[in-house]
């Protein structure tokens, strides 16, 4: 009986993993296809990669997206760390409940609503104070920082809650002032949470189509916006090449992270 159950479990879980990877693998294989038709195999070729790098529209958009993602992730990390710290280390203060509600709300808000509401805010602000004049990289960064802030705050908060406060208390007993306490003790302790928050924000910003479509102005198309319009228009083998490069970078990152984790585990074992 036990045997049959685990056979069923293994088969269904394996099917799940196949479901997860089959489209990605097909995409990678067909990025090396010589033929322009996606279903006809015309032999191996790198021509879509050179087509990709010669596509000025895609390259400009990719550069814009990288800039936006870098700045948004950095802003989100500063504000999100503050927010996570405030929620788990500041005790009670008026408005704490409201703040904790606001922080998790962007996580579940449908993107179309976030995008629409931010755009209408920017338009209303422009009408009232003349800022921001028009929309572009600045408004995309504000929008992305806002929804990434929530993710950083949640990660930092859970790290702080799981962490023992005794180190901070000891530092305070030894006379550390709040600022040096934060920068010399708390910050180094939560740095893994901050790094993963930054990476997550960077990816989320790089990936966002809907919000960016609402808050960007003419001539400021991010990479997902360009890909979306290309995909809607029809066959675009360069997009396969682009996808393969992006998957490759992510896979390298994940393999690196696993390797790092294993090394840490080994060191821990040795110390024990």
């Amino acid at each position, binding site marked *: 009986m036990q045997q049959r159950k685990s056979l069923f479990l293994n088969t269904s879980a394996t099917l799940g993993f196949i479901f997860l990877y089959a489209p990605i693998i097909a995409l990678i294989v067909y990025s090396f296809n010589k033929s322009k038709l996606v*279903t006809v195999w015309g032999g191996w070729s790198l021509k879509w990669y050179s087509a990709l790098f010669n596509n000025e529209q895609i390259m400009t958009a990719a550069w814009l997206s990288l800039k936006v993602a870098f700045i948004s992730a950095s802003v989100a990390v500063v*504000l999100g760390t503050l927010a996570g710290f405030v929620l788990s280390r500041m005790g009670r203060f008026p408005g704490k409940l409201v703040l904790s509600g606001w922080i998790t*709300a962007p996580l579940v808000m*449908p993107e179309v609503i976030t995008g*629409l509401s931010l755009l209408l805010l920017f*338009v209303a602000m422009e009408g009232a104070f003349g800022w921001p004049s028009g929309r572009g990289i600045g408004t995309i960064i504000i929008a992305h920082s806002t929804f990434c802030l929530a993710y950083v705050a949640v990660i930092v908060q859970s790290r702080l809650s799981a962490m023992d406060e005794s180190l901070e208390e000891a530092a305070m007993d030894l006379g550390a002032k709040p600022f040096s306490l934060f920068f010399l003790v708390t910050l180094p302790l939560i740095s893994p949470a901050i790094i993963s928050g930054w990476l997550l924000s960077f990816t989320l910003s790089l990936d966002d189509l809907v919000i960016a479509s609402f808050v960007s102005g003419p001539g400021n198309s991010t990479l997902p916006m360009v890909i979306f319009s290309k995909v809607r228009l029809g066959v675009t083998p360069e997009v396969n090449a682009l996808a393969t490069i992006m998957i490759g970078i992510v896979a390298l990152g994940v393999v690196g992270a696993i390797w790092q984790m294993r090394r840490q585990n080994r060191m821990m074992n040795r110390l024990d």
Partner: protein
Amino acid sequence: MNAPVSLNIPGQKPVSGLGRLIYSLRHLSIGRWTVISLPSLWLAVFFFVPFLVVFKISLAEPTISIPPYSSLLEWDPEESFATLKLNLGNYIYLFEDTFYLEAYLSSIRIAAVSTFFTLLVAFPMAYLIARSKSTTRILLLSLVILPFWTSFLLRVYAWMGFLKKNGLINEFLLSFGIIDQPLTMLQTDFAVYIGIVYTYLPFMVLPLYTALEKMDITLLEAAEDLGGRPMQNFFLITLPLAIPGIIAGCLLVFIPAVGEYVIPALLGGSDTLMIGKVLWDEFFLNRDWPMASAVATVMLIVLVLPIMLIRNTNSGKEAF
């Protein structure tokens, strides 16, 4: 977590609400105030105020101007008198035209069905990961997370290549003689279900895994010793213990799926109705900003708010 900690100022706290508010306002140092107000102000301006603006514009009338909506306050220079003009027409239209109601209902249906199938696909995966050895576990977890870090849009695009008339699935089935006419899969609701299950799968696997990993395995051993059959043990022990993970995963998939735009736009047909797409079209194609705002307001009040409230109850909190 609410106990006064490190940076709190010691001293007796007044009990009454107002007294406590004044007390805490006075006892906050400038440094504390800056740290608290920075993220709070940012969220207030860029997350909370926008909804008030959306609500305001939903009460305006569409005009041909920049921006394309009427002002709610009309200033009469002769009488030096301002009149407030609220237009409920958008909301009336929203309920009169069955198109919008159908779109709301069909979004809920599509999101619910896909959430159920996501759960079916994710459960065995999460169970297998939770029961495997620690090295395999890291590997399998990374395999689940890897697609989550790659572009959402490109993953949807990958399915277009699979589901097309001359796509890989049809080619495969035709070459093995299982079908003799290519199936129409792209631009149907079926493709939308696949797209949602596929792209949101990690959001379901991870909370399920967390719940199953915490489970006390001795309970299952005890049940086996008492003669429970595998099916019985699963439904009476494993499933109830996984409920926090199931709730969390279902909410994480259901809520964003309701407002989904990209998946119905790329995989769905012209008859696939989803409210996120309706809002988008109302805004970008019809350029009717007040109507798009009304659609968003109703979506927020009817769909998002109740779910957020459930999430903030005790069982919801445990789940997230």
